[in-house]
């Protein structure tokens, strides 16, 4: 089994959301982002963990130690434990590109990379 995260947008409830190829956010804003755990080996069928203790972390990598950060995901609705949400605080802007998801089920951890999963619109696009 290979887990993967399908990014979502316009999440209202577990019956009302859209799949999206990447999250699009603006820098320096607090963002509430949703994703669904799916099994890549089963045509991206949703994955509901049976673990007693489940921890899902999302890491936004950076070459700079000071810019990399990890947020812990939570279930927005107890009726569908495949859907998770994370809050990105306004003082921690992720970089556009890949992000890493770590799923720990009763002490056993799986990690995977979501390719180009987030795009961050810039406020200062004149130079870099």
């Amino acid at each position, binding site marked *: 089994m290979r887990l993967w995260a399908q990014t979502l947008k316009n999440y209202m409830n577990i019956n009302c959301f859209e799949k999206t190829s990447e999250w699009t956010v603006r820098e320096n804003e607090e963002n509430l982002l949703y994703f669904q755990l799916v099994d890549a080996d089963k045509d991206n069928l949703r994955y509901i963990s049976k673990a007693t203790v489940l921890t899902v972390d999302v890491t936004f990598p950076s070459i700079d130690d000071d810019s990399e950060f990890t947020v812990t995901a939570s279930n927005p609705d107890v009726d569908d434990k495949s859907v998770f949400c994370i809050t990105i605080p306004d003082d921690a802007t992720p970089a556009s*590109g890949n992000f890493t998801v770590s799923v720990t089920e009763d002490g056993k951890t799986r990690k995977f990379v979501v390719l180009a999963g987030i795009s961050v619109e810039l406020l200062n696009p004149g130079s870099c």
Partner: protein
Amino acid sequence: MADFSDSKDYGTAIYPVHAKEASDLFSRIEPILVPKKLISRYLKGINLNFKDGSTLDSEDLKDRINMAMNEFEELTGILVSPTVIKQKVPYDRALYRQYMHVKSEKAPIMSLFSFRIVSAGGDEIFEIPIEWIEAAGFSYGQINVIPLLQSYTSMGVAAQGSGGIALLSILENSFHFVPRFWEIEYTTGLCNKDGRLPSIVNQVVGMIAAIEILSEKAADDADTSVSISRDGVSQSRSGPGAAKYQARIDKLEEKKDKLIEKLKGRFSRKYFVGNF
């Protein structure tokens, strides 16, 4: 990952080269290219479905973009995202006398962590004080060591420099050439912050990806003429077949090649003048 708190940079933007400040009235920098942007720029009106029923979905387009970025890196020799490089460069007495003229394998240099003499066994023999490093040539990978500083007299640098100066002056009279003598560690990339790229780079990456996709689409449409007839009624149709997108592909190829040459020129020097 790297700790950038103790590294040397020139204090200007990587792009535009040496920009100290830029108004944000005009956009030169973008997030990394995404499938929606690729379609809106290069693939509008192109049916991404194939005759066998398969389709290029957003994950496929992401993969094509990723491949295009890797291809861009190989074509230009420029690494797109910030990457820490550790390399060794030779000691050359003629260049050494020109304020230790050293060229990095990759450019532009975003910041330099260390410039050291390290033995083949990995032991550090001497580290050049970071204050002596001249960063003005970082945009095309040139590092100079110019210890002509006011900080010569400051306690910190003087303490590091006193032994160092003696060592460095011995060097000048000892060897002509020592391979793999200096070890430099630096970060290269096209933007001071992760996940951003000059628009012009996204443009080239998009062209590379679009050329690939248009080629796939062209191969899917190989028929140049189709005719059907039955009971005296007939219909025929002819078209360019596999050459359908050739004009567009040629235009993109031509423009891509020009932009790549410009970008390579921006971040490197084609010839090197020594003083032997």
